[in-house]
């Protein structure tokens, strides 16, 4: 039952020679074989164990990687038909760093096509199921990573987060998901979706594992020109610290849009934080309610530009029949992309097109600076902000699949951290009446992951889902 253990516990076991890295890999692989037909967390599983002889803190333990980051020599599909035959020719910087620190890789996890979605339903490789209730979505777009970690099909995983794609699935699957500060983790080797918003981060079963992964993957990288020149830290030093006197702002306006269960879990969370000595006070974020509109102008605009590269000329799928070069582009893209990707490319093309640029795109960028100012002013008086990660528990598969706007609104609380570039974590803070996990989101100012780890770690000692995760 090695697959049930946390990364940290396994590191200790292997280091003390109570288990071998091979035994851990085989245990996870066996778990995958038992659950994968039901969950569909992976696009590709690495059946063959590739020993990592580098040594290092990961002790050869396996990490799962979202299938929009490159592992040299392995497929990167982005869960899209258009990359269904693509093999990566280099390691993403995060993969390289993990490798250098002794990690191995167990597989590539499923996602919404090109990370565009909140349910993992838009994947070309089929929907991933929520391991807590397989009639429900795991969230998205990193739904495969979150479902794998929650079900024991992975010990720990990496996801990417453009509008909530790490935190929302982590919340809906009862695990921990961190979106670091924009620029804190190199995106070299992450397939671009919306470049001013994308960030890579860990999905794990507890806060300590998140801190270990984060300490490994962060840091400046010359290969990513948006990478921040801020040195890496050992984030585990912020665990199990006192949070007495911490000033926490709660965004209460969020709660009126939430299910009763979510509100109750937030009430309990406030009590826990107060019992730890934190001062919790309501705050205003005047423009946060415009975040979804802002995001669905900016992100599709950037996506429409980033996804121009899929033309059937250089790599990936090419349509079988076409008349000339232009027709090859059109047929390749029309057959290669799914509906949601087409919708976003077109939405982006529309808001950038002549006559609409000022009405949408320019306004959205102005609004983005207002949202940023709201957060800046709160962080002058508060150490961090809390709000629910999602307004509801995990929804049913198919429930929002035909209603893009409803799907977009499920990211209403996670989007502001991407628009403002700040770090935010989701940790479990309760169960709904249906027995499904709910998440607490903790946000801090840019590059203040230290505060997030302090508060999340303290909260976790008072509430966690240990023993309740669907690992049996």
């Amino acid at each position, binding site marked *: 039952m090695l697959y049930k253990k946390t990364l940290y516990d396994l590191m200790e076991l292997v280091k003390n020679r109570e288990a071998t890295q091979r035994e851990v890999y085989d245990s996870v692989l066996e778990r995958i074989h038992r659950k994968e037909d039901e969950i569909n967390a992976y696009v590709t599983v690495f059946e063959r164990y590739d020993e990592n002889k580098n040594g290092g803190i990961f002790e050869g333990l396996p990490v799962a990687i979202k299938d929009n980051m490159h592992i040299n020599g392995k497929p990167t599909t982005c869960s899209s038909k258009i990359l269904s*035959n*693509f*093999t990566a*020719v*280099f390691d993403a910087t995060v993969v390289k760093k993990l490798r250098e620190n002794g990690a191995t890789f167990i597989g590539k996890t499923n996602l919404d096509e090109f990370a565009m979605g909140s349910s993992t339903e838009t994947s070309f490789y089929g929907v991933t199921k929520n391991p807590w209730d397989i009639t429900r979505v795991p969230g998205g777009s990193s739904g495969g990573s979150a479902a794998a970690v929650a079900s024991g099909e992975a010990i720990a995983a990496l996801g990417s987060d453009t509008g909530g794609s790490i935190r929302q699935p982590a919340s809906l699957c009862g695990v921990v998901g961190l979106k670091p500060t*924009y620029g804190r983790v190199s995106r070299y080797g992450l397939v671009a979706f919306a470049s*001013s918003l994308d960030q890579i981060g860990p999905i794990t079963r507890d806060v300590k594992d998140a801190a270990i992964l984060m300490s490994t993957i962060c840091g400046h990288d010359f290969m990513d*020109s*948006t990478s*921040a020149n801020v040195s890496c830290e050992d984030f585990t030093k912020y665990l199990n610290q006192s949070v007495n006197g911490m000033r926490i702002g709660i965004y209460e306006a969020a709660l009126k849009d939430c299910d009763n269960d979510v509100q109750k879990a937030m009430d309990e969370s406030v009590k826990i934080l107060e019992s730890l000595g934190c001062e919790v006070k309501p705050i205003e974020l005047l*423009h946060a*309610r*415009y975040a*979804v*509109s*802002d995001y669905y*102008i900016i992100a599709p605009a950037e996506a*429409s530009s980033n996804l121009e590269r899929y*033309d*059937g*000329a*250089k*790599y*990936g*799928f*090419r349509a079988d029949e*076409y008349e*000339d*070069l*232009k027709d*090859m*582009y*059109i*047929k390749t*893209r029309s057959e290669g*992309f799914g*509906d949601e990707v*087409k*919708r976003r*490319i*077109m*939405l982006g*093309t*529309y808001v950038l*097109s002549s006559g609409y640029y000022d009405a*949408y795109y320019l*306004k959205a*960028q*102005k*609004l*983005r*600076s*207002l949202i*940023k100012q709201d957060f800046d002013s709160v962080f002058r008086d508060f150490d961090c902000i809390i709000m629910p990660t999602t307004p509801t528990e995990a929804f049913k598969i198919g429930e929002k699949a035909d209603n*893009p*706007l409803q799907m977009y609104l499920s990211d209403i609380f996670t989007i502001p951290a991407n*628009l*403002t*570039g700040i770090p935010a974590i989701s940790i479990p803070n309760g169960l709904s009446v249906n027995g499904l996990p709910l998440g607490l989101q903790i946000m801090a100012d*840019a590059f203040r992951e230290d505060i997030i780890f302090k508060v999340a770690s303290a909260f976790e000692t008072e509430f966690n889902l240990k023993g309740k995760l669907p690992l049996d």
Partner: protein
Amino acid sequence: MVDKEEVKRIAKLAMLELEENQIDKFASQFNEILNYMKQINELDLSDCEAAFHITELQNVFREDEVKPSMNRDLILKNAPETDGESFKVPKVIER
């Protein structure tokens, strides 16, 4: 209001081709989404500066050094069609 013609115009700009039933569906979905986005018109943004990037990004300069690039053979393996040295596409220039 986005009508069917507008959806076709956008699709053409984005190098996409939609089925007839998709055009109707996309038109109604775009209208629903754009209608929701009208909320931002409540705001007076005339005095605001646009935030084209949100963290203080700086220009990155470096020496222009010659370094080995990626392996051509590996890259060409991912290409739909090659002549062994280059990507191959349908003829572009008319005689």
